[in-house]
């Protein structure tokens, strides 16, 4: 029984969330018939889900969302500005020189030239060799230090645990 419990306990939550395969479901349901401990554990999960979900469902069922859309609409209207693109479009539409049959081929030619030029520029500009760049870093729990010496070829990201974490983990 103990061995079955230890192998089924890792599947119990998946079973509860209905994310098990057919084979796993068969294994768990077979075990549950004979194991009150695992049945209790499953009941606890159901109970917890009810505690979390029931108040939400009750409130959502009664809610009629008074004036929510109207407030959203008003907020958008207040902050709505003409984007530079819509300004450009209206200007382009007004100018005969920028009719489609003129500017589409012009833009296409420009794009091709830019792509060819970019290749030349990129070749001439060597990118940094052997450097790791930390582009983004976030740690809600720890203070973090980044250290990047020239030599050796290592970038260090160090997490400083607080004294509570030290006591918890040692």
């Amino acid at each position, binding site marked *: 029984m103990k061995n079955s419990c230890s192998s089924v306990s890792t599947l119990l939550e998946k079973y509860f969330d209905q994310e098990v395969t057919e084979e796993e479901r068969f294994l768990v349901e077979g075990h549950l018939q004979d194991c009150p401990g695992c049945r209790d554990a499953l009941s606890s999960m159901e109970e917890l889900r009810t505690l979390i979900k029931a108040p939400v469902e009750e409130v959502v069922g009664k809610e009629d969302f008074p004036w929510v859309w109207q407030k959203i609409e008003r907020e958008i209207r207040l902050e709505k500005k003409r984007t530079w693109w819509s300004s450009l479009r209206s200007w382009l539409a007004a100018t005969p020189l920028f009719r489609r049959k003129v500017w589409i081929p012009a833009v296409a030619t420009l794009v091709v030239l830019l792509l060819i030029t970019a290749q030349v520029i990129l070749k001439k500009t060597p*990118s940094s060799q052997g450097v790791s760049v930390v582009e983004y870093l976030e740690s809600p729990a720890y203070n973090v230090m980044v250290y990047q010496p020239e030599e050796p070829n290592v970038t260090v*990201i160090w997490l400083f645990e607080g004294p509570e974490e030290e006591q918890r983990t040692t």
Partner: protein
Amino acid sequence: MKRTVFLLTALFFFSFFSFSAASAQVQVRIRVILASNVGQAIDPSLNDVHKELGSLFNFTSYRLLRDEPMNLVPNRTVTVQGRRPGRFMEVTLIGLHRDNAQLRMKVIREGVDLLNTQVRLSPGRTVLIGGPRYGEGVVLFAVSSRF
């Protein structure tokens, strides 16, 4: 008609340049190391980084806990399990450029992100994430790439 030609031309050039990125992958090696001041042993499989570790830290002992070489493809996350349940590291290849790979790495303990970072890693360069305590020492994740 002209607009169709323009769009097709742009599409041809962009697909040409994006093709190599789409089919790319990068080899990454992740080593999980326990650094401590208990004893004076250096795991023989860490000889290649012993000098670097010695110059950065004052620990007397380095033990290799896990060594995971893997091929990363863009936007697919791989997981390296820690020593204890609920502790692991996730690595995702975000982008591959001519001379560096963009990796997003997370260190997770019991469902909480201890660290969420994004780095550009060049071949031959190692990123070392350290600090979480384990037993008498600290855990280091050494991530290096080759492509």
